[in-house]
């Protein structure tokens, strides 16, 4: 079965410094991978998705993620954090073994320090 692991439940960075949110997946197939963001009291919003095209995927709000098959990783990055980036981020994998359902990671809460 496919799964996704977000390695940190909380990450704190100072405003203006780089952001790194880590995600590892397990998959016996070429996976589809996604990052979603949830701002406080809001629904989830798709940030970006990887579907076997370019390995470096650019998303909204300056975020990007790189698919690394050798490391089974899909880490989310941003060069310079902004206060508005404070939110919870979910890494998601498409599970082709389970009727194509998607599996959410447990989430990483990003805190931005002034």
């Amino acid at each position, binding site marked *: 079965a496919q799964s996704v692991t977000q390695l940190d439940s909380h990450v704190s960075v100072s405003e203006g410094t780089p952001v790194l949110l880590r995600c590892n997946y397990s998959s016996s197939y070429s996976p589809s991978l996604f990052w979603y963001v949830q701002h406080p009291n809001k629904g989830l*919003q798709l940030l970006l998705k990887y579907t076997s095209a370019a390995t470096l995927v650019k998303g909204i709000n300056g975020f990007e993620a790189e698919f690394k098959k050798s490391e089974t990783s899909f880490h989310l990055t941003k060069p310079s954090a902004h206060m508005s980036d404070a939110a919870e981020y979910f890494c998601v994998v498409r599970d082709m073994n389970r009727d194509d*359902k998607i599996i*959410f990671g447990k989430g990483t809460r990003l805190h931005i320090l002034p």
Partner: protein
Amino acid sequence: DVKVTQSSRYLVKRTGEKVFLECVQDMDHENMFWYRQDPGLGLRLIYFSYDVKMKEKGDIPEGYSVSREKKERFSLILESASTNQTSMYLCASSDLTDLYEQYFGPGTRLTVT
């Protein structure tokens, strides 16, 4: 602009009550989903529907049922609410051609006392 709305942001119900959570999308999407979100557990799929009157169980369907009589509306029903169903409930929809790009509502925080 894509929009998914949920009938209530906050709901408090008593144990044993029948609870209805409503979700409406205005994007003419075929697929609709109900998730529950709990701290440290992420999102877990309860049920989904890929067409009117069609439904499929997700990972945790026990204690829940769903109804989809119209394409734009997907209801989650708790037949007899229990305290362990206290949670945030999220509805989502997606287009037939892109199942995985889901659009989410703001959520309903349900408390069962």
